[in-house]
């Protein structure tokens, strides 16, 4: 290190300095991007006046990121230059207008203008597909819903949707339409990935399907919770308010994580909310349809339905029952979904049981997760059994009852776990983790009661399911042994068992952007499909990964979810 100036010779050459090199073209001359490499912001502003949509790329010629992103911008420009004006501005050159007027802390900066509205800063991933998608959203912030099928399509999207109904009889424009249009643009300022979709209905018949009757009403569609209508009487009808209302009330049962690369607490904040299922899928923002994403959405909805105890459909159910009231809260349908999602076991065989109501006066339930752990002398081939032997779990339960465990006396909010050996098998032992749940809080338990009224009934229903399900089990590996410094609470509890008080949060990550996190969690590079699933539990310092040889499809995903015990909240 250098603690003082080195001795300098006394001569004139010492004082020689040289001004910065003159700026040169950053984009090639044949490029569809107009390059103001001397920072002529005034010219750029002038030519913007003639264009409906303008894309500004502020760069510094020395900046590595600007250089890397340059190719991506050219790609987008080649596809959209007939509809969008692409302008690059050297905002570093200190003689240029741009540098004198703008003060950026990083480069490149991307601004979009829709006529006079703007700037909308794009802060999403710096690759061509994402940028193009965003530009297209700025070009068409409102989707025109012209038919019933378009409406269904719009509403079935997993991302939140806002619909406005405007009658275009009046000229030139129905009142409030411009505000609604602006709010759609406005949302892109806050929501740079464009997760909230905005649509407009002009046909009275289609509007009735929702139903919206008054021109100017705005509707926020939600899958799990009740959908909402913009409360004009409470909030002023402004673009900012509509956008704010949509952002605040939107539902996010699927959450995309797209770390931008700069210093960020995104993962820290999300993972501290509780155990998380991270799904890595390759995502093309420009694709027409997303079959894999639709599957995931279905599973996530089912999972949420279990938790929230509400019947929900990906589409709008009352489109079929035309006379039902739109804002009526949907009746819970408690019995049907539980059988599917609740009693699926995994290796080591586990099952959630509610202890029989021997003290039904109590307002609480003891819920136990009962597992059979194979330990000594069992070969690895055991892992490949499609399902846990039904007899095994029954024996475990018997054994559990025989022990007359202390759980019956304890009313506890904490989880209590105990291991007990089977009396007939020296090679396996059972684990039971129990906790007490307030009945009022967990209404689904009351339905569960019918299934698990007696252990026999419960497991026979389970066994029946086993026969139909010939799919291999989700092979959830515990990789902790490979990771120094981490540990799992008790090596005898393998897999996902005994975490009964935890709900999984679902997150999606684009493998094309974030595959490094998958690798850090143990994804293999040898497998070519970039699909990967892992459960990360920051608090317990544990993570579990799904066998990459299994395709990420609904049935396997369902099992991953059910692997996360859904008791508790």
């Amino acid at each position, binding site marked *: 290190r250098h603690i003082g100036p080195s001795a300098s010779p006394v001569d004139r050459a010492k004082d020689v300095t040289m001004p910065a090199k003159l700026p040169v073209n950053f984009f090639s001359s044949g490029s569809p991007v107009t390059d103001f490499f001397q920072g002529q912001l005034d010219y750029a502003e002038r030519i913007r006046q003639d264009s409906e949509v303008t894309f500004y790329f502020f760069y510094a010629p020395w900046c590595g990121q600007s250089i890397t992103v340059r190719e991506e911008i050219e790609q987008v420009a080649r596809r959209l230059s007939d509809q969008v004006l692409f302008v690059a501005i050297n905002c570093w050159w200190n003689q240029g207008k741009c540098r004198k007027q703008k003060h*950026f802390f990083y480069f490149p900066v991307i601004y979009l203008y829709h006529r006079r509205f703007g700037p909308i800063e794009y802060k999403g991933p710096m690759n061509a597909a994402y940028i193009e998608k965003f530009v297209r959203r700025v070009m068409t912030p409102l989707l025109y819903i012209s038919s019933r099928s378009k409406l269904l399509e719009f509403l079935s999207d997993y991302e939140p949707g806002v619909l406005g109904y405007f009658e275009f009889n009046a000229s030139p424009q129905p009142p409030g339409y411009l505000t609604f249009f602006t709010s759609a643009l406005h949302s892109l300022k806050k929501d740079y990935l464009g997760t909230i979709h905005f649509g407009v209905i002009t046909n009275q018949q289609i509007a009735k399907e929702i139903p919206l009757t008054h021109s100017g009403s705005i509707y926020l569609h939600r899958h799990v919770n009740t959908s909402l209508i913009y409360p004009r009487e409470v909030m002023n009808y402004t673009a900012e308010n509509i956008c704010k209302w949509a952002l605040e009330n939107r539902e996010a049962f699927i959450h995309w994580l797209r770390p931008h690369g700069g210093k960020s607490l995104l993962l820290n904040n999300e993972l501290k909310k509780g155990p998380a299922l991270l799904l890595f899928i390759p995502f093309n923002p420009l694709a027409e349809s997303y079959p894999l994403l639709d599957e995931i959405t279905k599973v996530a909805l089912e999972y949420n339905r279990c938790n929230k105890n509400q019947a929900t459909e990906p589409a709008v159910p009352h489109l079929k029952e035309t006379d039902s009231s739109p804002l009526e809260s949907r009746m819970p349908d408690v019995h049907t979904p539980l059988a599917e999602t609740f009693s699926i076991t995994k290796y080591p065989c586990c099952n959630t049981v509610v202890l029989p109501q021997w003290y039904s006066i109590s307002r609480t339930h003891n819920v136990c997760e009962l597992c059979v752990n194979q330990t000594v002398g069992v070969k690895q081939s055991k892992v490949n059994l499609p399902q846990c032997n039904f007899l095994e779990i029954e024996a475990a339960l018997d054994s559990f009852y025989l022990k007359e465990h202390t759980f019956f006396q304890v009313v506890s909010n904490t989880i209590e776990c105990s291991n007990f050996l089977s009396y007939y098998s020296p090679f396996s032992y059972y684990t039971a983790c129990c906790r007490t749940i307030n009945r009022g809080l967990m209404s689904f338990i009351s339905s569960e009661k019918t299934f698990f009224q007696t252990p026999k009934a419960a497991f026979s229903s389970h066994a029946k399911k086993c026969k139909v399900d010939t799919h291999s089990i989700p092979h959830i590996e515990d990789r902790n042994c490979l990771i120094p410094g981490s540990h799992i609470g008790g090596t005898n509890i393998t897999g996902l068992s005994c975490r009964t008080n935890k709900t999984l949060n679902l997150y999606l990550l684009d493998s094309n952007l974030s595959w490094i996190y998958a690798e850090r969690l143990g994804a293999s590079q040898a497998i070519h499909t970039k699909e990967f699933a892992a459960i990360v539990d920051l608090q317990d310092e544990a993570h579990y990964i799904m066998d990459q040889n299994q395709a990420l499809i609904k049935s396997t995903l369902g099992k991953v979810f059910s692997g996360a015990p859904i008791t508790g909240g």
Partner: protein
Amino acid sequence: FNGSLWPLYLLMDLFMDPYGERVKSMFYHAYNNYLENAFPYDELRPLTCDGQDTWGRYCADLRFSVLTLWILGNVSEFQRVVNVLQEGVDFDIDVNASVFETNIRVVGGLLSAHLLSKRAGVEVEAGWPCSGPLLRMAEEVARKLLPAFWTPTGMPYGTVNLLHGVNPGETPVTCTAGVGTFIVEFATLSHLTGDPVFEDVARKALKALWKNRSEIGLVGNHIDVAAAKWVAQDAGIGAGVDSYFEYLVKGAILLQDEELMSMFLKYNKAIRNYTKFDDWYLWVQMYKGTVSMPVFQSLEAYWPGLQSLIGDIDHAMRTFLNYYTVWKQFGGLPEFYNIPQGYTVEKREGYPLRPELIESAMYLYRATRNPTLLELGRDAVESIEKISKVDCGFATIKDLRDHRLDNRMESFFLAETVKYLYLLFDPDNFIHNNGSNFDVVLTPYGECILGAGGYIFNTEAHPIDPAALHCCRKRKEEQWEVEDLMREFYSLKRSKKFTFKQTLDQRDGETRIPLLSCSSQPFNSKLAVLGQVFLDNT
């Protein structure tokens, strides 16, 4: 580069390959221009295409860059330069020299070249590594520095005359780093030559600083070495102090010395308590702990790298990411950056192509393989080429606000900046050896293991082979210890987390964590890549 070693990341495969080559051509552009236009002057003047002396015609650029040459794989040029160096320089000259700079650049450079010369194919004499012309030169220079240490406190004067010793009337005020940046070179010298005087004076100076720390555990940045009084009471991690902290850590690792490490850890705690705000480190009054200067200095960017050496990857990465934002704002690090204002400080707007941030990136990349660190490397290559490359070399950026250039190319650009940049991009460099291969040499004291990795860079980026320190002592036990360690290493095949803790004397019998072991990383560290940081789990 071996593609399979790299994490697949969106942009990495696009720029991994070319960047290492571009760093190489950067080096040769500067080096060849020095040889053509400036040799035998000390430094190249890139704007006027001539040379100047900053060291009293010591051919500074040639000497300081010789090790970079070798790291870049140019063995023949390395051999040629070493031969030039061996022709000798007369140090019996009436020149006032900075004790600190002479140590880190001249003594450190000579020791490093001496230790690495065999591997580079230079013919060495029979007693190597315990004797040799470069070692003798290093010893000769170091002896000329010793009079500076003859003070009441043991803390050295800042300047010494190579012929007459300390000038009468020499100022006793010197900076903290000028007192505490000797242990790496001087201990190496003592171990190789067998004369303990160098290590002793270096230790004595370190202890004197430790004794004079404030009640809250901080040190100022200038001290009166005769009276042991703090003259400048600003405490921070940057200019005037930096390499003192660096040498506590590096000295501890080099000498496996727990005392030095425990000193550092206590400083580290005080620094964190009083100077750290939001992952920035500010300057505070050393006695009161009140903020005196909310400034980030370019020199401070070594700190994340140092933290990585003690295993504190988490804090290191968070601070690194702060510093990186400053780079992104200007295309370099200004000497001073006002944190609250988010801008440069008057008269401190320059960037003389300093290595510190790149050095930290290199260490952190070894520890984390976080692609963000390669991005910094990419940005550094692009910035330096676009902004400071001129016909005759690379010029200091005089002002980062407009990228005006100055007629200097400081010697640390070739000796450090390019070296760390290259090491960042070259995963297979011998410097990164993890002990999986080594040399056995026969010394007068028996067989000895060398080149097993774990190189300690002195503060001027000259690597020292720590294994060599065990070669030249008569104590057999010490050699056996090294041999045992190597045997143990091979029995623990493929265990990357090998540390020396097993052989440290467990005198207490308690289960305390050895100071010199590396702590395991928190669970969330596996996801702390690409800018993601995690807050302390408390």
